[in-house]
């Protein structure tokens, strides 16, 4: 009897295993490498939560999925806003007939139309002191009256959302006007971030504390209830508005087949299945078994996937798998603490920079795929000039020795050991060990300080470090986000952890950031980027490259730095999938 039960059980298992590939519906299989905290946009501080939230919620603007450099386009807004001449008032008209998902929060369970009030409500929610939104920094001190409203509600027993705010006005049922305190050209980027996605008041009130598990947005996919598990399944939103796949992109996009779906109604897939897999080995195996359509190659598996750092391994190629290598908008660096009198010595900074063999580091740690950073701004942003070469990042031991002697420390004599703080993670440690080994050659002793991530952040914000190393990734596609790392008023606890101060730089930076996007601003950024490079405020590292693998049947994938809205544009070719699945 027992044996029979066991046998039947086993049979069921085999049948269920073999039947898990669905060729009738367009299913998109993705992997999220981190657990999702919940679906409340104002708390989406990490990229992975942002990616999930972007499937159900939407913002007023989004980044164009194909155009590069990144370009904003209207999403819930009907068009790009009209901006007043002084750059302070943004008037935004909303699209007509955008519906929220059906939900018990609404009357009769039917989603109602999106209105200007929802935008105002969502922005106020971001500022609500009771909610402690993680994204508040985005609008802190930006909109007239919003900070005052926040202050007022700190002590109040409940936040009063009814009060009108000068800088946040409803013009008519579908039009909102934002009034800013001072020019903030990055404002629209802020509105495109998940923090500022639009939520309906009814759902927040209906679900209360459970709101973060009951997403009710306007987005292309629905998820009635979110449960903490290892799998999230989204289905196509049946009441989604008429939104079409773009018909233009970057040059060459049509050759790459990225425009094949132009003019089609999105979303293009019926279902998205996200598996949450933290460990890199199961991720890799899952992709190899075709249980995932897209994979960011885990560093450990790089060598078995990409031969010689360039060519896709033949067994992957034979299955139609494609490789995408994409420069990221980021920069890695060793920052000096400019509070330390030692590092006021420019020649010392330059000597240290020139003693590091970046070519070897690139080979050892980035599979030779990273770009050596000449200065702060990464390629792909206005202000980066391809031809610019920073003379002080060249590996030249003789020159480094000469500079060190001129700095007053011939052969490192008289120079104390320098401690660099980093994360306690294998590669971070190895990078400093490599740096230390290089600098030993000119007589400088480097020590490693290992920290947990919060510890490191704490040391940097409290200025308790001599040097530290980190990487900075773009929040939005504007070089201001990078140059600001060297702006004096941003010194710790702000984002300028090196506490670098340079008056000329600051004056120029202030002028540049008030300008609207355009060639004039780019010229300013270029000048800032190149003058500051020579001063060696940091030891510049690399702009890194991310590697993705995609299955042959995944269509329309193009690397996006800000990818929370990307998934609605992806498509699955069922014919190809059926055909190729035999090979897995």
């Amino acid at each position, binding site marked *: 009897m027992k044996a029979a039960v066991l046998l039947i059980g086993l049979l069921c298992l085999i049948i269920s295993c073999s039947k898990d590939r669905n060729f009738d519906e367009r299913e998109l299989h993705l992997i999220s490498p981190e657990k999702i905290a919940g679906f409340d946009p104002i708390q989406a501080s990490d990229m992975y939560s942002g990616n999930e939230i972007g499937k159900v919620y939407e913002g007023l603007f989004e980044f164009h999925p194909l155009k590069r450099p990144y370009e904003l386009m209207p999403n819930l807004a009907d068009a790009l806003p009209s901006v007043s001449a002084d750059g302070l008032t943004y008037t935004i008209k909303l699209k007509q007939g955008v519906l929220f998902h059906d939900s018990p929060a609404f009357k009769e369970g039917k989603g109602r139309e999106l209105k200007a009030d929802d935008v105002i409500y969502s922005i106020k929610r971001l500022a609500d002191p009771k909610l402690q939104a993680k994204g508040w920094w985005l609008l802190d001190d930006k909109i007239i009256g919003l900070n005052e409203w926040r202050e007022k509600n700190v002590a109040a027993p409940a936040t009063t959302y009814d009060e009108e705010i000068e800088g946040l006005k409803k013009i008519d049922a579908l039009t909102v006007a934002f009034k800013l305190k001072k020019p903030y050209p990055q404002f629209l980027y802020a509105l495109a971030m998940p923090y500022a996605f639009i939520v309906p008041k009814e759902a927040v009130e209906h679900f209360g504390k459970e709101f973060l598990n009951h997403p009710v947005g306007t987005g292309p996919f629905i998820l009635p209830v979110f449960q903490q598990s290892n799998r999230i399944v989204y289905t196509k939103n049946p009441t989604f508005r008429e939104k079409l796949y773009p018909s233009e992109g970057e040059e060459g996009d049509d050759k790459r087949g990225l425009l094949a779906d132009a003019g089609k109604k999105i979303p293009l897939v019926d279902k998205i299945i996200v598996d949450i897999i933290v460990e890199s080995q199961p991720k890799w195996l899952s992709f190899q078994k075709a249980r995932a359509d897209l994979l960011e190659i885990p560093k*450990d598996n790089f060598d078995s996937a990409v031969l010689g750092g360039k060519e896709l391994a033949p067994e992957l190629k034979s299955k139609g798998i494609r490789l995408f290598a994409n420069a990221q908008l980021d920069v890695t660096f060793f920052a000096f603490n400019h509070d330390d009198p030692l590092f006021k010595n420019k020649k010392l900074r330059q000597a240290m920079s020139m003693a590091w063999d970046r070519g070897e580091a690139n080979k050892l740690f980035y599979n030779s795929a990273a770009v050596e950073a000449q200065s702060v701004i990464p390629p792909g942003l206005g202000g980066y000039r391809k031809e610019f070469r920073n003379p002080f990042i060249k590996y030249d031991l003789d020159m480094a020795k000469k500079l060190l002697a001129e700095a007053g420390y011939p052969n490192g004599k008289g120079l104390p050991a320098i401690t660099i703080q980093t994360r306690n993670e294998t590669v971070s440690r190895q990078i400093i060990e490599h740096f230390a080994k290089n600098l030993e050659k000119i007589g400088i002793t480097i*020590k490693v*300080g290992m920290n947990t991530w919060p510890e490191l952040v704490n040391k940097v914000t409290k200025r308790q470090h001599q040097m530290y190393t980190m990487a900075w990734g773009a929040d939005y596609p504007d070089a201001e986000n990078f140059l600001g790392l060297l702006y004096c008023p941003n010194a710790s606890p702000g984002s300028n952890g090196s506490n670098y101060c340079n008056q000329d730089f600051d004056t120029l930076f202030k002028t540049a950031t008030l300008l609207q996007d355009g060639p004039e601003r780019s010229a300013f950024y270029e000048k800032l980027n190149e003058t500051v490079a020579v001063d060696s405020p940091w030891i510049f590292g690399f702009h890194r490259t991310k590697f993705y693998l995609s299955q042959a049947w995944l269509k329309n994938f193009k690397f996006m730095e800000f990818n929370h809205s990307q998934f609605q544009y992806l498509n699955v070719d069922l014919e190809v999938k059926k055909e190729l699945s035999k090979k897995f």
Partner: protein
Amino acid sequence: MKSNSLWKDAFYRLSKDKLALCALFIVVIYFLVAVMSGAGWIASSWSQEVGASNLAPSLDHLFGTDIFGRSVFQKLIRGTQVAMSVGVAAAVIAIPIGVILGALAGYFGGWVDDFVTWLYTTFSSVPNIMLLISITLILGKGIFSVYVALGATSWVNLCRLIRGEVMKHKEREYVQAAGAIGGGHFRKLFRHILPNVGHIIIINTSMQFQVAIKSEVILSYLGLGVQGEPSWGTMIDDAKLELVRGVWWQLAGATIAMFLILLAFNILGDALRDALDPKLKGK
């Protein structure tokens, strides 16, 4: 028949046990290596490049080279120095604390005992690795913190054992006799009782030694241990990423080095207990 003293008898038993002698020999070798490395006679040039990055083991490089082309064999020797020094330092700190607290608690009883019992139960109720991590976070990183952290956490077991033994012994006739001829507390405790429970310290130390080595490896693996010096823990941490690329020699080297010394201490500890604990005699 002439009877031998406990120590003489123990030594005789130990010398009969071939496996234990073998273990003792390994331990002595490790100590010698550690001392020679500490004095700078061997492996002082561990940080120099000896070849290309990640060379496989060969006659030139016994355990291959690491990512920066340094000799894994020399790093292993430096790691031995770190591991053994941690064992010794932890013992030097833990034994006095454990013995003194345990002896006082066992001998005096009453509130002293209550206090010491409370102290060590509190210590042992916190998971050891958590305690280690928090101590190294407070003291800052480095080998000194590892010494202190391990010393401060590994006295508990010894303290408990000594307390129990002292309780048992303080009622014995020889202690009463010492009291009767005018011996004070101090004399009774340190001249009479302690020498009779001394074997516990030896057995316990050899057991604690391997715990200390293991903990150092774990802490260094987590990035909380020694900084800028090779340790078996950091070598295993390096190997974690290299293994998928087929670079197995760092992991193998560190594991073998660790395995041998831990096994040796285990066998030695067992043999010492057999030899020294009168209750186990003849079994």
